Structures are given as structure tokens and as C-alpha cells.
């Protein structure tokens, strides 16, 4: 029997190949999950469409998200706010989704929206500062006005924040305590 390393290695060729395929598969799987099964675009309790509201009816963002430029939190509109308008929009009153809304309203229950843009508790983020700095909502939230179901376009993770702060060289934008708390 020879002492050539290659000969010795040959039988290991196939397991190695299998391994490679497996690893490749892992990447594919992760990618597929991210694309199709992730929490980036969950089914909401009511099929609310930003497309209809923002584009078709040209309602500005802060008409509903009233706190965005005043407080750290943009604020999801209260049920009363929704009803406020929809009472005066008879055309869609019979629409099944609107009926859901009405149901919540009559039960005096909040709508359990599923959070799409979520930051961890240790992050200090304020909408106010970013909006007063002249950022458009879309810069982080993507073309919301074209979405029928809200979808997260950004990772909302630290590298993403840091990159933006770096590009615009925000004053002390890369000091940890600017965002961490």
C-alpha cells in the first residue's frame, strides 16, 4: 500500500462533498426562512392597508401616528381615532375588515396589533429626534404607503443604526450611550 497522502485521502472525498452540500443547504434554508417565513410581515388582526390610507386617500403619516414628532414613541392610533374617520365613511362600512374594527370599538377593546418594528428594551430610541432631524418615515420604515400589509424592510439591528449614524456623521452618533441605556 502506498504512502501517498492523496491515496489516503481519497475515501474521504464523498463525505466531504456531502458535508459541503449540507452546509450550502443550511445557508439556503436560512435565506428562505428570512424571505418567506420571518416575522417581518406578520398577519395582523385586521387587514389594514397603508396603501389605501396613505396613497389612495393621501393621509399623512402623522395624522394617525400623532406622537411621532413630539415623543419618543410614534404611537399607534387609538381605536376611537379609527372610528372617528370610519363613522363618516359609509362607503366601506360593510367591508368585513371594517366590521372587525367596529366590533372592537363596540367591545371597547384595543386591537392587538402585532409589533413589526421592535427594538430591544436596552435601546434608547426617540422618534422625535429623528423626525426633527428631518428624516422621512420611509428612510427606516420603507415605502409604507405602498404596502398592503406592513413589512419591515430594515433589520433594525445595531449595524444598521451605526451605518446610518456614520454616513450622516451624527454628532456623537457613535457614542455607545447615545443609543444604549
Amino acid at each position, binding site marked *: 500500500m502506498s504512502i501517498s497522502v492523496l491515496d489516503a485521502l481519497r475515501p474521504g472525498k464523498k463525505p466531504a462533498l456531502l458535508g459541503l452540500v449540507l452546509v450550502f443547504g443550511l445557508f439556503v434554508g436560512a435565506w428562505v426562512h428570512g424571505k418567506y417565513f420571518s416575522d417581518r410581515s406578520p398577519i395582523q388582526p385586521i387587514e389594514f392597508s397603508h396603501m389605501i390610507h396613505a396613497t389612495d386617500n393621501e393621509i399623512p403619516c402623522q395624522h394617525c401616528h400623532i406622537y411621532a414628532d413630539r415623543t419618543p414613541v410614534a404611537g399607534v392610533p387609538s381605536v376611537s381615532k379609527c372610528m372617528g374617520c370610519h363613522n363618516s365613511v359609509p362607503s366601506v362600512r360593510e367591508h368585513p375588515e371594517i366590521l372587525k374594527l367596529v366590533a372592537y370599538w363596540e367591545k371597547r377593546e384595543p386591537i392587538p396589533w402585532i409589533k413589526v418594528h421592535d427594538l430591544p*428594551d*436596552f435601546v*434608547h430610541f*426617540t422618534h*422625535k429626534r429623528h423626525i426633527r432631524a428631518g428624516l422621512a418615515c420611509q428612510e427606516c420604515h420603507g415605502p409604507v404607503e405602498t404596502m398592503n400589509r406592513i413589512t419591515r424592510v430594515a433589520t433594525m439591528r445595531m449595524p444598521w443604526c451605526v451605518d446610518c449614524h456614520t454616513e450622516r456623521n451624527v454628532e*456623537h452618533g457613535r457614542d*455607545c*450611550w447615545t443609543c*444604549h*441605556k
Partner: protein
Amino acid sequence: MSTFVEKLRQYRKPGYYDKFDYHWTMTIDLDRCTGCEACMVACQAENNLPIVGEKRFAENREIKWIRIERYWEGEYPDVKMRFIPMLCQHCDDAPCETACPVFATYHNQDGLNTQIYNRCIGTRTCAVYCPYEVRYFNWFTYTWDEPLEQQLNPDVTVREKGVMEKCTFCIQRIRIAKDNAKDDDRRRVRDGEVVPACVQSCPTEALVFGNSNDPEAKVSKMMKNPRGYKVLEELNTTPSIVYLTKVHS
């Protein structure tokens, strides 16, 4: 390479922080301090310090970002008790900052010695290097008896096991003040606009906090007081806290 050398040269020269807007500083007047410990509870309330329980105290594992140290002088009947509040001195040349292998603690442009809980891997070197022993380690993950957790301050993280923590000069309050300043286009926050919990609570007004880069600030004036000194000055850690000694009459 030369740029690095340059950086190194001008790094932490005395007055390195003067070029920034803020250099947060505190003065503690020991002639006013009565050791009532209102500051300790204020800190606990503001910064979500855990309620560690009797056992942990017995093991000497309490967490108190600010503590009152007691020193007896003399013997009965001419015995005296001296109190000295001890909290993070936010040294300009902090030993702890060189120690951390992952930069979880560093000095920021406001002259604050900061601790990033998320970055901490728990080598605890900073606590060993700190001569003031004001860094506290989370030996466990502490919990609050329901409904005490409702009191937790949402502006401050609740720390998990395995991370170091310490006084931040109530950075969340500084942050809010800066935010307000920005809202009405002020470059700097006004003197007295930022008050850490301990300073706010102090019933004898022994603690004064402010921006020593602003010569008009009350703290800058206090620092000029001839009674002023810094604890363990000989170690050249250049603390940001100036103590005013008690007067003997």
C-alpha cells in the same frame, strides 16, 4: 502610523475634555453631609438597583451605586464619626477603562466613565482595577416580587447576570435634558437642568452636580473652594468628583 502616534500623544492630556461641551462633575460637601443615606435610596429607585435580599448582603454582594462610608476617629468620649459618600468618580484617567478587553467601559465625550451592559463579558477586571471599589457585579439575575417590578424605571435597563454595573451620573436624565435643549435650539443644557437622583434628593444640599466646562456653573464655583480635595488623589486617576472636607471647630 504617524496619525496613531499623534492620537496617542494628545490622548488624555490634562484638559483633554475641555474641548467638548460638557465635563460632568460633582462636588460633595462633607461639612453638609449628615450620612442620612437618602441618596442611596434615591439611586436605587432611579436606576433599578435590585433588591438582593438578606443572604446576598451576608455574602457581601449588595449593589449600591452610591454608598456612605463610615470612619470613626478617636475613642470615647472624644469619638467622632465621619461620613463620606462614595460613588463612581468618573476619573479622566480611569484605571478601569484600560482594563476592559472589549471596551465595555470607556470614557465618552461628556467626561463620563460609562459602562455598556450589553458589551460586558464579565471579566470583572475593571472592578479589580478600580481603587474606589464602586463597580458592582451582577452575580445573579435578580427578580422583583410582583408587583414591585411596576416601579422599574423604563429609561434604565435591568441588568442580567454576569455584567458589571456602576454609577452613570444618571445619564438618562442628562439625555432628557439634552433632548429638551435641542428642542429649543440650545447648544448646551442650562446649569442645574440636569440633576442626578442622589443630588436631587440630598436634604442638606451637600451634593452639587454640573458641567465644569461652564465657568458660570455652580459646580465650577464650588470646585474652587479651598476645602476641595479628591479622594486618593495620589493615584493620579484625576477623578471628576471633588470633595470638600469637613470643617473642624
